[in-house]
């Protein structure tokens, strides 16, 4: 019996020139009582397909069957009535209210103006917690709970509604390795008692670890489907990208780097973060998102009195414009917001932040066309920016090429220090290796590199030294190559792991 059967699902957004086909003729067959992974790169159409299954979007054509019955969902309410529940990537929980209130929302089962059945709900929640060994305090406020626990509340919310088909959108993005293990064992238990689980992800390692079957989407189409037992990461990556991909990151960093002069020195940022990045080393900052990474990165460009030295120069009172005149490359955390002007061409974006750079602008404030052309040539050839189009708006590039554009621009500063935040987030599998190579080349040619990332594998593969950030503090430091993911994971989780 198939829990979900999707045939010829098609959905397009916009019209005319800006028409984007998010799903084209997608077929998905998901047998009941299995864990199904739906993988693909950003923009491949995974979320669109699941939003249609959950009634948040209506398909243009194609049919959806749930437990054999043809369904047409007009809203998530319809989907929930058919036993489908979804854990969204950004949790649907209100911080100031209790676990119980969040779980009860929309499932009150009493008249709108009568008393909330809190006591009964608590009893039912307790029995669910016991049955699935997922303890949680019903009276705790959501905002006081760690992220892993919040996710547990989301899953309990679905179980409270007795959802038989659970869709989880990128459930591991915000978890420590320990929390991921706990989540996976809970999911297996739910499957073993007959529920069906669909997990949306782009992490191949997790696909192989948890799923029974896997479907791969590429550019809105089904690129492949197989039983996970027969799958390999290489095969899945090939389906995702459409060509062979080298997944193994270049040889792990070796000790012996980082004997050079300090390129970045910070003291007492956040709640007492102090460290140095020396010439010829990559320093990785590991940590679950939201533990101070954003504030740390921000104070490197806007020190506002905090103690920051860049290339031996005290910049604690310098404005960002002064800091940007130094040979330093910054890859911002959110490149769509802070890295690129999405409606402008590659050429314009290469100029961004170089408005006062004499290489690009003469002393009368006129742009040196020749220098800009040369930079564009370099972006095309050295940085492999594709497609090679002069006038296309930057939003037209893929995630990987947008990041290449940022990298190409930042390398125009001939950086002696590279500050790189989540350099491969939302980047196609094919471009990840290239970006890692670039960072290692920068290090090998004597730059200091600061790498902030929530991808533990990336930190492990590239870093000569690893610092773990938790709650605004550095809680652990390791030499690269001497530590495994589990150890770092424990440090990332702090006392609560």
């Amino acid at each position: 019996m198939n829990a979900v059967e999707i045939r010829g699902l098609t959905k397009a957004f916009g019209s005319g020139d800006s028409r984007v086909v998010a799903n084209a003729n997608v077929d998905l067959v998901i047998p009941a009582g299995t864990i199904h992974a739906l993988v693909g790169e950003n923009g491949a159409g995974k979320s669109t397909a699941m939003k249609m299954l959950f009634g948040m979007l209506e398909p243009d054509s194609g049919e959806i069957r749930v437990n054999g019955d043809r369904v047409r969902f007009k809203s998530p309410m319809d989907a929930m009535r058919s036993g489908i529940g979804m854990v969204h990537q950004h949790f649907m929980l209100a911080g100031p209210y209790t676990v119980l209130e969040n779980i009860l929302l929309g499932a009150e089962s009493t008249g709108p103006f009568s008393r909330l059945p809190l006591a009964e709900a608590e009893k039912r929640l307790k029995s669910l917690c016991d049955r699935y060994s997922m303890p949680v305090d019903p009276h705790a406020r959501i905002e006081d709970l760690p992220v892993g626990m919040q996710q547990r509340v989301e899953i309990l919310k679905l179980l409270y509604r007795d959802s038989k088909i659970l869709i989880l959108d990128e459930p591991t993005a915000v978890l420590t390795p320990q929390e991921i293990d706990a989540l996976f064992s809970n999911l297996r238990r739910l499957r073993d008692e007959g529920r069906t689980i669909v997990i949306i992800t782009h992490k191949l390692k997790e696909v192989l670890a948890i799923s029974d079957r896997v479907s791969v989407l590429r550019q809105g189409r089904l690129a492949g489907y197989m039983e996970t037992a027969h799958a390999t990461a290489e095969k899945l990556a090939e389906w995702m990208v459409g060509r062979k991909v080298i997944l193994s990151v270049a040889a792990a960093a070796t000790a012996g780097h980082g004997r050079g002069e300090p390129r970045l020195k910070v003291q007492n940022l956040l709640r007492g973060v102090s460290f140095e990045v020396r010439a010829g080393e990559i320093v990785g900052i590991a940590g679950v998102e939201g533990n101070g990474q954003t504030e740390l990165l921000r104070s490197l460009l806007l020190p506002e009195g905090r103690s920051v030295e860049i290339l031996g120069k005290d910049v604690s009172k310098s404005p960002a414009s002064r800091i940007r005149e130094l040979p330093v490359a910054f890859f911002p955390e959110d490149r769509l917001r802070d890295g690129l002007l999405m409606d402008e061409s590659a050429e314009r974006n290469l100029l961004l932040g170089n408005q006062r750079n004499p290489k690009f602008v003469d002393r009368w404030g006129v742009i040196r066309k020749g220098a800009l052309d040369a930079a564009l040539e370099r972006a095309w050839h050295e940085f492999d920016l594709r497609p090679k189009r002069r006038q296309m708006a930057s939003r037209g590039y893929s995630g990987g090429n947008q990041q290449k554009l940022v990298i190409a621009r930042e390398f125009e500063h001939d950086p002696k220090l590279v500050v790189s935040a989540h350099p491969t987030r939302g980047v196609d599998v094919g471009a990840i290796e290239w970006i890692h190579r670039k960072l290692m080349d920068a290090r090998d040619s004597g730059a200091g590199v600061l790498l902030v990332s929530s991808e533990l594998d990336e930190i492990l593969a590239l870093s000569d030294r690893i610092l773990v950030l938790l709650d605004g503090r550095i809680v652990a430091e390791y030499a690269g190559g001497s530590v495994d993911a589990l150890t770092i994971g424990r440090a990332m989780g702090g006392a609560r792991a």
Partner: protein
Amino acid sequence: MSDLIGILESSLRIASPLIFAAMGGLLCERSGVIQIGLEGLMIVGGFAAAVGALQTGSAAAGLAAAALAGVVFGYVYAELSVRFRANQIVAGTGMNFLAMGLVPFLSKVLYENTGTTPSLPLEQRLSWHWAVVLALGIVAGVAWMIRSTPVGLWIRFAGEHPAALESAGISPRRVRMRSVIAGSALAAMGGAVLSIGLASAYSRNMVAGRGFMALTALIFGKWRAWPALGACLLFGLAEGLQVRFQSGAIPVQLMQVLPYALTLVVLAGFVGRARAPQALGRQD
């Protein structure tokens, strides 16, 4: 002693229109819609109540007329702010100006003057005892509804995390539309208490910033019913004292400033960690 009781009595009386308006504001704002139009709602409510009571000779009908006017105004504001996603500060200010212009106009049409309705005989006025009892009942009702009923839960989520409400199968827009309309009716009833309860007619500039004062009380009360009631009573006390001591040695003008000065002091000094509903005024 009788002096003290007198002051308390008058502050309770003076606070009652504020209480209605603050509770109305609470319903709107907890659902995520900024309600800066309380002033205008009190104006139309006050006028509609006076007209209704004059026409029918019944205070209850006056109160009902005010509620109806509040529903109409609230509906217009809900359409603007919830359906058409207008900027809520701008739309709310617009509603205030609309009220300030509409009432003198209607008054001119009905009574040949720009702002004052004919006086009601005493027996057709709303007894202020009843107004106070009703106000306190509404506070209790609103507090209970917000805390303990499904509707209250929906309103709280609409104001805090509308996407969560939607994913639970309930439309945040519908919840907001209804909260705004219900809240507007309550605020307009506050105007009615002012015109046919505390006075015997609607007169021009009668509301005199009480809508904004109610909004301040709501914020001071951190968007919670009982604390907001406390804030209203405090403002009522300040105004009661002001009236009491007008004949004293202190210059009248200085005393008249008291309620407003208190509003400022309270806002600056005591609100501190006030935390507005997360989605208040947001349109996504």
